[in-house]
């Protein structure tokens, strides 16, 4: 069951993921990193994928992109781009999609660039390889991309090596590379983690603007509910490899149903709260994915858990238009209000 990020209805979704499972072979048995994930995304829309470390959000985005190692991982289910199946597609087929249709901005701008190539070369390379642009034209396009991502004096920067740029500038270069061949879908995996707050705001605004200008779809993967709150149309919350809640952004924040989503939100310190406000921490840790519990993965840490939660895993069910969650005892208006202390 998949809900489309509210598009104009008739248009087929750009991306459809159905029943995606990813497991890795380890010496201690298979590790189920992503379990039965379905989602879909329409052109021009933004989907946020939120979760803590180990929740499977990065594995999910890499599986969509087709970047997981085939030898050590098993991927089942379906990932369709414009209706075309791309999960487990041969590399040369994927290569035709990469850059020109689907592109990715990686988390770490410090290590994702080639340190011994000038950044101009790294931006113009996809233009030459994928779009077969001649050298001069590729350079012109690369310079205009540098300008679009807000890098001052692009002509000088074109000749720079990554080490000569700051973290924020490098992330801009990463975005320029990802956008070089005008992809229809951009996967941004923690694009601002490790950057300063003012730079983070610049990068997020830049991504939003470019997305709007190009009518591009975007998946924003992050651990920070603050990053996705004002910049996405729909949010998926992941926990221990499972999607535990999915809703349009405003609906999620207004009427979250899954106790984990609430716990995640409440454990964040807020600028709006006075100093020394006691945080409601989630005690314990996420389960070991090698020995996942039989019931709800969040049950051992859940304040509302009952016996059924530890015995039977709740399915992800659409309970209201566009709003799905996997919980036997979801939050209601009453206990949500009590928890927030309204």
């Amino acid at each position: 069951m998949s809900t489309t990020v509210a598009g104009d209805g008739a248009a087929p979704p750009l991306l459809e993921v159905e029943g995606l499972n990813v497991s890795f072979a380890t010496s201690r048995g298979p590790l189920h990193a992503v379990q039965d994930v379905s989602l879909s995304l329409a052109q021009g829309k933004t989907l946020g994928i939120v979760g803590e470390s180990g929740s499977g959000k990065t594995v999910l985005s890499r599986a969509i992109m087709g970047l997981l190692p085939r030898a050590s991982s098993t991927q089942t289910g379906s990932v369709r781009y414009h209706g075309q199946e791309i999960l487990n597609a041969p590399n040369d087929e994927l290569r035709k999609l990469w850059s020109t249709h689907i592109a990715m901005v990686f988390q770490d701008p410090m290590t994702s660039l080639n340190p011994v190539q000038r950044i101009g070369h790294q931006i113009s390379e996809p233009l030459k390889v994928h779009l077969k642009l001649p050298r001069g034209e590729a350079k012109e396009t690369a310079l205009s991309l540098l300008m679009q991502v807000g890098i001052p004096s692009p002509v000088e920067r074109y000749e720079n090596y990554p080490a000569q740029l700051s973290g924020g500038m490098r992330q801009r270069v990463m975005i320029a590379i990802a956008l070089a061949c005008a992809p229809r879908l951009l996967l941004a995996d923690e694009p601002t983690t490790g950057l300063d707050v003012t730079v983070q705001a610049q990068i997020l605004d830049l991504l939003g603007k470019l997305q709007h200008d190009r009518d591009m779809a975007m998946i924003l993967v992050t651990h920070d509910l603050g990053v996705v709150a004002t910049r996405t149309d729909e949010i998926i919350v992941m926990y221990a490899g499972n999607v535990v809640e999915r809703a349009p952004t405003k609906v999620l924040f207004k009427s979250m149903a899954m106790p984990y989503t609430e716990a995640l939100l409440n454990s964040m310190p807020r600028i709006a709260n006075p100093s020394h406000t006691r945080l409601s921490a989630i005690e314990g840790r996420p389960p070991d994915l090698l020995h996942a519990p039989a019931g709800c993965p969040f049950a051992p840490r859940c304040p509302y858990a009952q016996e059924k939660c530890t015995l039977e895993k709740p399915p992800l069910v659409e309970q209201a238009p566009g709003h799905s969650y996997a919980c036997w005892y979801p939050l209601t208006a009453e206990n949500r209000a009590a928890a927030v202390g309204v």
Partner: protein
Amino acid sequence: MTDTITEPKVVGTEPEPLLSVEDLHVLFHKGNTTVQAVAGITFTMRRGETLGLVGESGCGKSTTGRAVVQVEKATSGKIHFGDLELTSLNRSELRTLRTQVQMIFQDPISSLNPRRKVVDIVAEPLVIWKIGTKEERRQTANAMLDRVGIDPYLHGQRHPREFSGGQCQRISIARALAMKPKLLVCDEIVSALDVSVQAQILNLLEDLKQEYNLTVLFIAHDLAVVKNVSDRVAVMYLGRLCEIAPADLLYESPAHHYTAALLSAAVEPDPEASRTSVPLGGEPPSPINPPSGCRFRTRCPRAEARCAEEVPELRDIAPGHQVACHFPIGT
């Protein structure tokens, strides 16, 4: 969601602060260039208070913390800690100081010796200072581990690699508190942790601060985290202090344009939050060749000619609220 702990705080009546930093400079030299990491900052810390030090990378907040614990030598300036003046101490005096001043670092895993058992890691400061018998030291270490939420009987004999980042940070806290220090310097101690674990550590720190009557210098880049734990907050930019104020006041009515820009760039988990932010353009200038006058003037929306000529000194604009700006907001 939360209950507020209200602590009655006496403002400005205490005779003498625990720590006072006067015109601290820390310069790094490389070849012909000099990096002004910390370029003249002055602040005091009362006993039992938490001072948050916030700023972006490269602003000198970590260097300030390291100078306070004397891991980094101050180029000039004075650091008074109780009766001691730290910059003039000799080696053995410095060693004694380290029993009273402790530091916790950002990366919880690499700051613990991977080849030692956690109970030995926590007991090590006691061993070095030959405090108590072997048995007493073990008991103290066990008690400390227990206090920070690590079961000493189940997990005391394990090695750091067997623990998660959050648990390693708990062990670091236990080690830092084993000597019952007066001042604790925390340098980005939660920035590597997930939010749910971050909340556990921040709550633990708040509890321990009360229990041990600690004075805490809390260095971090995350504005919400700093506000949560701090009594007062100091904002740094390019080696200098912009503003110091009680935490709630600073976030409510920032007077420095940089503080205001930082606050407007912060993201809150609220879809209704206004995104009217006017994010700062550009990036901080190089600390090798900082702008003349006010260091923020190159990015400041309010800068005038005077800002290029005259360095704004930190001055009082309200009780407890100091700002280094010629044209502070709201005046």
